[in-house]
């Protein structure tokens, strides 16, 4: 009968940060499988590069901060950051940019603010946005999916490995890359094309971006699994999708000639992956249920505004970072009403 000073409660629900992070990683499996079908098995390589970079950066940061690397690495959060970056970056991105984005995410996004739980910004999005600004050309060079590519799956696979390892023939790059749907929309409108002309471009699939629409469905599937397992709560993904859809519907209603439809916005770019896996990061998100609704809706609306009126074809990363900035304000104004208290 030791531990007499042990305070109540004497039971625990048995959930741990490591378990939560593990479930997030598992929920990315459908996405990884569709990715392998569309672009060849290059994601495992990209994931290995990102994970190695993330672990290295984490270990370095912990060493510099005089923390025990063992306990901090065991929480698996750094693996999730690496996996989300690998999933969100262009499939054939050369390895050094992946390393750069991951290192920025872990060092500046996370440890500069004090490590796990302290970061005001979503680390993966800090890395992604920095890479987008530093390497705009490589970061917007999206691989054509196997359904639209001149290459077959095995040729795509070998090209992918060569490109990631930096051995690809740069002259042949045009053979396997193409504009994404959002990019095609952006440039098409700039070139004064009509909406039907734009929608007929090869970058568009049945209801979203060519190929990307299936990735989005896979992300949706994994996200629903996370919802069922109560790893994430419904407010953020629903608010992100509703905010984006509402803004897109309004744009479409006021000026159908210059705005794409709701479905395209939901199933192109990183919308689904972002709504379920990135915007749901609890550390940099709002605290209360009402706060999460505001936070998510802000991301959805800002994403649309950047896509429709900004210089970048997709704006999800910037929208997340901007709403991260607003979190303290949101938390302050969305305090819950305590049982037996009038709202103050």
């Amino acid at each position: 009968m030791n531990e007499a000073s042990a305070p109540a409660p004497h039971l625990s629900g048995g959930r741990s940060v490591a378990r939560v992070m593990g479930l997030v990683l598992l929920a990315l499996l459908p996405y990884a499988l569709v990715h392998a079908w569309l672009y060849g098995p290059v994601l495992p390589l990209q994931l290995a590069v990102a994970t190695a970079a993330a672990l290295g950066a984490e270990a370095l940061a912990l060493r510099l901060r005089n923390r025990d690397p063992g306990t901090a690495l065991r929480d698996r959060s750094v693996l999730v950051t690496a996996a989300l970056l690998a999933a969100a970056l262009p499939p054939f991105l050369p390895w050094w940019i992946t390393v750069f984005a991951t290192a920025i995410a872990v060092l500046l996004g996370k440890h500069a603010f004090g490590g796990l739980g302290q970061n005001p910004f979503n680390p993966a999005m800090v890395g992604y946005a920095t890479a987008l600004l530093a390497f705009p050309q490589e970061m917007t060079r999206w691989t054509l999916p196997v359904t639209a590519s001149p290459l077959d799956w095995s040729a795509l696979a070998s090209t992918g490995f060569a490109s990631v390892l930096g051995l690809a023939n740069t002259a042949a790059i045009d053979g396997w890359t193409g504009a994404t749907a959002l990019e095609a929309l952006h440039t098409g409108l700039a070139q004064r094309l009509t909406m039907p002309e734009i929608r007929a471009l090869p970058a568009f699939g049945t209801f979203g971006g060519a190929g990307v629409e299936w990735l989005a469905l896979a992300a949706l599937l994994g996200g629903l699994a996370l919802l069922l397992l109560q790893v994430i709560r419904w407010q953020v993904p629903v608010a992100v999708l509703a905010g984006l859809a509402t803004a897109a519907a309004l744009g479409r209603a006021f000026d159908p000639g210059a705005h794409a439809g709701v479905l395209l916005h939901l199933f192109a770019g990183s919308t689904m992956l972002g709504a379920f896996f990135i915007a749901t990061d609890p550390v940099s998100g709002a605290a209360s249920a009402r706060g999460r609704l505001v936070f998510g809706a802000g991301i959805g609306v800002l994403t649309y505004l950047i896509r429709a009126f900004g210089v970048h074809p997709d704006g999800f990363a910037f929208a997340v970072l901007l709403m991260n900035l607003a979190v303290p304000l949101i938390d302050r104004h969305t305090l819950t009403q305590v049982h037996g208290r009038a709202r103050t």
Partner: protein
Amino acid sequence: MPSRKREVAARPLLVAPRPHRVVLALRQSIDGGVDLEPCIAPGARIRPGDCVARPRRADGAALHTPIGGIVSTLARHPLVHADGPGPCVIVEAGSSPDPESAPSEPLGDGYRALAPEALLERLRDSGLAGLGGAAFALDAKLDQARNRGCGLLLLNGAECDPWICCDDRLMRDRAAEILDGAQVLLYASGAARCVVAVGDDKPEALGALGAGLAALGDERITLQAIPALYPAGAENLLVATVTGMAVPAGGLPADVGVLCHNVASAAALARFVRRGEPLLRRIVTVTGGGVAEPCNIEAWIGTPLAELLALAGSGTAPPERLIVGGAMSGLAVADASAPLTKAANCVIAATAADLGGPRSGPELPCIRCGDCAHACPVDLQPQLLHWALRAGDPLALARLRLEDCIECGCCDYVCPSGIPLTARFRAARAAELRRKEAEAQARDWRERHAAQVVRRERVAAAERAQFERARAEGDGEAGA
């Protein structure tokens, strides 16, 4: 939260023999509470049922000895109390058993002939106290309910902790006694109706009370099944569940016209009225992997916990932790010689397996997942409170209503980072309370000092006036 009590509640009630030695704690609640003052001297010969200590405040209840014998000492002894060891009256049974003391004349149905005020007066020395945890005097609560005009009497049979089942056993075995007590409470409080709220995971108890009600035919009393979800039995939450009215935070059920009592308190009241027996015993759940035969025991107040554990059979594995109260809000006790108190509803000899093994690792930083806010029954934001505590920001703590925390432990239970939130909140609340007390004391001293200054000035002015007068008179005489 997995329930660990179905089989334990199903076992028949064990009636404990009277112990040879009792340790009667002068603090009968688990924390805070009222200190009692002994009213017998060491060496005194006392009979079972004699009063050994009386409260200094109206909300404390008198304390009686369940055994006859000699008061051996008044000494500090390990207790089931958050502050550790405290003063106790220790009674040793004599070698020759004392004759059973004649209990005071039972009231019987005669209680109806007494005015409610006179009935409360009789209850004053009964030792009856809330058996749900706080151990406040029954008559004080009734008196308050009369003054506030409470219309509803709510009997709490929710018992939502995953281990405690003493009320379940009581409701199954003594439904008639509980309903009898309810009628006395209705008479004494002036309430118009009574709801007996029972957790819906106790079909046998609901059945027994239903049958008892049918036999009694008192349409003022109704039975209500409530969802058995921890912490549904917390008083103010139970009031909200049953009436739909929110008790103002920091307030009492009386603020919305409800008088709340535990079912065990009602049964004890019936026993006092019918048999004249002061509160000498209670039913307590003795459970956990550390005992072989977990069961409910009707045990005498003052029995050392070790004797209760022995009654339930020593287990194969030595307990990792001895807990008094529930698994969610109970107190870990270092010393099994600590005695049973009126507030102790459960003793858990918890093994490592019962505690779910050690936590998966050291405490991790908060990841703001919000599971704690989702779990909080009073809609606080534990993670924001946690940050405000770390930042040492008293204004934020006040804004986030730390004072409204009911210390149920739900936030700890779900926290993936393994942060001992409840313990920190408890400590911060206690510190805040101490700060407020110190502030009130300082104000008191300041006011007294100011009064003293005024008083001294007045005295000095009077002396001066007298001196002046005397001099003027002296001058007058000299001039004459």
